[in-house]
């Protein structure tokens, strides 16, 4: 069973330092981790970097990291930077 980690509010430079620890700890702890992004209200380059880092950290431990429930701000950025393929998680578009 996978354990979801839910990120709420901003995933930006303002919380980057705090979230880096949280994300890396969660990646290290769970073999399969779902990160729920549905409650992310703002998303910037710092946020992108954190997700890239987490993905890489997971790969290094042969853990699985999935991003689920991308919120609109996240989808916007992923499209802008063409990152969906990099993460490879299905994105559910909002109606």
């Amino acid at each position: 069973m996978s354990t979801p980690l839910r990120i709420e509010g901003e995933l930006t430079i303002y919380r980057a330092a705090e979230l880096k620890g949280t994300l890396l700890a969660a990646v290290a702890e769970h073999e399969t981790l779902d990160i729920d992004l549905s409650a992310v209200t703002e998303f910037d380059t710092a946020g992108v970097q954190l997700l890239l880092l987490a993905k890489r950290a997971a790969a290094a431990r042969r853990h699985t990291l999935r991003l689920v429930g991308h919120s609109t701000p996240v989808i916007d950025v992923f499209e802008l930077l063409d990152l969906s393929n990099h993460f490879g998680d299905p994105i559910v578009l909002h109606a």
Partner: protein
Amino acid sequence: MNMDDALATFFAESRELLEQMESSLLAIGQENDTAETVGAIFRAAHTIKGSAGLFGLDDVVNFTHAVESVLDQVRDGRLPVDEPMVALLLACGDHMGALIDAIENNPDQRDEALIARGAPLTERLRAYLGTTVVASTDPQVPFERIGASTCDKDLWHISVRFGADVLRNGMDPLSFIRYLSTLGTVTGIVTLADALPDADAMDPESNYLGFEIAFRSQAEKAVIEGVFDFVLDDCTLNILPPNSRTADYIELISSMPEESARLGEMLVRCGSLTAKELTAALLAQEQLHPEVPIGSILVERGSVSAPVVAAALEKQKRVKEHKAQESQSIRVDAEKLDQLINMIGELIIASAGANVIARRARSTELQECHSTLSDLVERVRDSALQLRMVKIGATFNRFQRVVHDVSREIGKDIALIVNGEDTELDKTVVEKIGDPLTHLVRNAMDHGIDSPELRVQRGKPARGTVSLNAYHDSGSIVIEVGDDGGGLHREKILAKAIERGLVDPGRVLSDAEICALIFEPGFSTADEVTNLSGRGVGMDVVKRNITALRGSVDIASQPGVGTTVTVRLPLTLAIINGFQVGVGKSVFVVPLDMVDECVEFTADQGHDYTDLRGQVLPFIRLRDLFEVPGTAGTRQNIVVVKHAGQKFGLVVDTLMGEAQTVIKPLSSMFAQVKGISGSSILGTGDVALILDVPALMQEAQFPVSHTPQLA
């Protein structure tokens, strides 16, 4: 990295590139295959232009652009690399250096006069380009374009690496890309996270991302560039216009910072081919030719042209080599090194203080402990000083240029022979020795080397030789500047010296003494000196500069055979091994490398020499020289010191032994004091004076002529 730091890096790098450019230019004359060298010169000019553009240094960009255009033609074999071309490019390199210097020294003001000086050079460059106008007005050469048929007409390629601080400065790279989309369509984008470090090292508030963007737009280049205006100082931006030439893509590949990037990805990033084409090629490679590298498949399928692949492969190879080199050396601020040396100096003084107390306390344990400690301190000192040591080769190589230029200027055919480039010496010394050496080399060429006709007459090869040689000798470095010219004219020098009142008429001087005369101030300022075929112009300045480095300079000359100027310099300026001697209550330090032996004082009354195993040894009584109060004890000693192959003695009261000595400069108030080169602080907190052995030696040998009286 803030703007100033980045600029400082730019200045340093540009200078290095200019140096490379210069040595490559000078190498052209000596090589058969010049293609690679010309390529290196072109890359240097191109990189300088690119970086200067990044900082908005338009004057540098404009001038360098003309240079680059000519080099481009040379590289394509459309212009010859002959002597005038090399000379012109050397001059251009100098001008670029001058422009960069001017900006560094006075960033806010354009040096109009300097820029105007570049105009004639630009004219001459244009003249070269003018001859090839026919070629360049041809319709665009199709095979130089990449994918002209498959690429969109308005497809730009933008390559951008944002600096680490953009996020902290409140700017989000995303917003620039969003803004970019308002000017056209982003048709493809690759997010580069290669620079993202390991989890531990990653600073979540720094930016590590870069982007390769394929962008369709009708906008002008300036408009697209304007998008990144706010971060221009803080990012690396390359914009390739639609249908760029192969060379531009190759340049982009070479300039990319990423290291581990695979070839295929690089090509995608460059916009040379699409991700789809790459995937297809990868598939083909797996299925059909597992052993054939991807590069050749792409070429085979016509996806990219061969030169692009070659450049990418070369880049990969270079990255690997570069990495190997990088791990071997690091760049450190010279100031940090100086700080370290200073701290170690203080450490030595403190350690000497601890030693004094340990002895006073008569605690064996403490003394033992301290002896281990001082051993370590000594080793730390040695390795710290070693850090400052640089090879003299770089300085020597600069003279290839000087010789090249001057020999053209004065119309003599002169070669420079360099020996001992690997000899190491203190960085400060290297920096300060450049000017005096230039002077000596110029003098050797101008006055030393005789005219070709005279040379043939004397049975010497028509081509003159100036040699630079460096080696270590008892704690100092010796640099020799030699020539195979006519030698000094003793009679003329002596006549001149008598005329100027430097020497009393009728005095008999040795050859060495006569040669030494040309270092006298006043000798060089005479109007007719240039009529003398001997040296003399500014030699007193050379001597003063070298003496200021605690060094000495000698000259040896053989008529018709040549002249050699020998410069001796201390290896380091900061800390030396010293030998402490006492006179009365004062302590003096002699550099240990110069101490030969110590003997008991014996002398005939009233004479200033003694018998050292059958040889005459002149000596100086330090008590008299420095007017130390009190009378000498019954047992005095002579310290025999050796310098430049000669010996003399110093009469002292007591021998106190070896000690590390941190040299502290004397204030300029004491500049006139002869025989003292610096001061040092002892473990007890007292001040000891460091003896200037070369100056004392003069005192011992020529007690009269050492202060010339003007008539």
